[in-house]
């Protein structure tokens, strides 16, 4: 029973990483940039929903609706400030460096606006779920349901809708996309918006478990690890990789509490030595 509890906690944490990793992968595919400020977008999501909940006193549905709108706007603003002005730079790594700058700026920004003292946030439903000897904070269940549901929606958007095809086409061949008349600025913007909604929602869900503070952004390290573990650049790989990372972390507690992060990265390194392309790596080379 303890194992079941650990599995659920692990999947739940993995889901938070996956919310980041899915957005990261979508941006990598769309513009070829690894967004090092992704953890800070996650953190920003937590602060923004904290503001909607406690400064504006919105009810839950209001937080969700306004949250999505605010995240989408932030995603677009992020693209126009960090990516768009530098997109034609002859030095490819320029945009990546600018995301590093953005991560510092966002961290400073939330500290100026909300202070340096961590903020507390109530879970969606208070209390503990128990089933036999399994005791779980409800929030873990909500993370799995809401995170999983949101990722499924984004998956459907990309695979089944016309806009999704347009975004995929833009990601696969930008030049060609422009020639057939895709307003690539719109489709890249949509990708950033979706990416921010995923991350921001992650921040909202994580807020009650951790505290809302600027260190929330460091959770992105696990998302990066999950992406590499699953096979860099593959959406399904990123999700599976992150869920695995969450599980490893959770079960790693059996062995050691102090070194659980070290265990995650040890497993990552071992997997990469055995399988340098990550778990879903083959699919990528096929596509190229």
């Amino acid at each position, binding site marked *: 029973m303890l194992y079941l509890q650990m599995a659920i906690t692990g999947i739940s944490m993995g889901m938070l990483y996956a919310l980041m990793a899915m957005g990261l992968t979508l941006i990598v595919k769309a513009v070829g940039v690894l967004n090092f400020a992704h953890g800070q977008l996650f953190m920003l999501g937590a602060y923004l929903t904290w503001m909607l909940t406690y400064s504006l006193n919105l009810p839950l549905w209001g937080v969700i609706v306004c949250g999505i709108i605010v995240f989408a706007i932030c995603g677009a603003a992020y693209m126009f400030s960090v990516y768009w002005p530098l997109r034609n730079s002859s030095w490819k790594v320029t945009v990546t460096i600018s995301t590093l700058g953005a991560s510092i700026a966002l961290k400073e920004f939330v500290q100026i606006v909300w202070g340096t003292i961590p903020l507390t946030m109530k879970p969606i439903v208070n209390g503990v779920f128990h089933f036999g000897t399994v005791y779980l904070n409800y929030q873990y269940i909500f993370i799995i349901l809401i995170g999983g549901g949101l990722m499924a929606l984004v998956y459907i958007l990309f695979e089944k809708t*016309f*806009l999704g*095809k*347009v975004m*995929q*086409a833009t990601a*696969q*061949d930008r*030049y*060609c*996309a*422009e*020639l*057939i*008349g*895709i*307003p690539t600025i*719109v*489709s890249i913007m949509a990708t950033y918006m979706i990416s921010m909604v995923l991350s921001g929602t992650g921040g909202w869900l994580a807020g009650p478990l951790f505290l809302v503070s600027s260190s929330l952004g460091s959770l992105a390290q696990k998302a990066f690890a999950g992406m590499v573990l699953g096979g860099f650049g593959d959406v399904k790989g990123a999700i599976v990789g992150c869920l695995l990372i969450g599980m490893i972390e959770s079960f790693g507690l059996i062995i050691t509490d102090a070194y659980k992060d070290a265990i995650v990265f040890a497993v990552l390194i071992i997997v990469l030595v055995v399988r340098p392309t990550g778990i879903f790596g083959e699919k990528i080379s096929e*596509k190229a």
Partner: protein
Amino acid sequence: MLEIKDLHAYYGPIEALKGINLKVDEGAAVAIIGANGAGKTTLLNSISRMVKTTGSITWNGQDLTVLNATKIAKMGIMHVPSGRHVFPGLTVYENLEVGSVNWHSPLKDGDYTKDLEFIYNLFPRLEERKNQLAWSLSGGEQQMLAVGRALMGRPKILLLDEPSMGLAPVVVNELFEKIDEINQQGMTVLIVEQNSKVALHHSSYAYVIDDGKITMEGPSEELANDDRIVEAYLGKKRG
């Protein structure tokens, strides 16, 4: 009618086009032949507004140089790039589907049953492979898909960049016959080619481009028999 006057194009300090003048009448099939590096792709990129230029480009009197690539496609000017530019991770059907994006909103699907029917009739192999991912197609099929995808955009003029590139001679002939067929149904076609023989055979008027300048022009048949062309571009000895 597409009309280009004194067109110059630049890549930084490099002047790739040095004053091009040309005209493509409605319904015509015009070829531009030239060696590698002559400026053929740059010329098409100028029309589709993918490079910066000076000089004038007009389409039925409207100035194209003030527009962006999206607007050019919306007007029905469809540039099919060279080198099998398909969306590799989308299926054949999806590639065609997104080709319709210029005449409706990217947010929703349009009604293109008739367009699809026409394209599948023209290239039956695309229908056979409609659920295959585009990267898995042969070179010829990918080129057909690129043309088919352009046709989904309901073009008024097709700008084809070296459709013969990297294809076996049989496939090249098959493809150009299809292009003829499209042209005979009223589509204006501008073909840019290194393969002068095929291009001259499948066009009515042609220009020769060399080092960013038009060096010769005339009815394709005349150019095909011109000694200078025969020697320089058709690879045959005189007499």
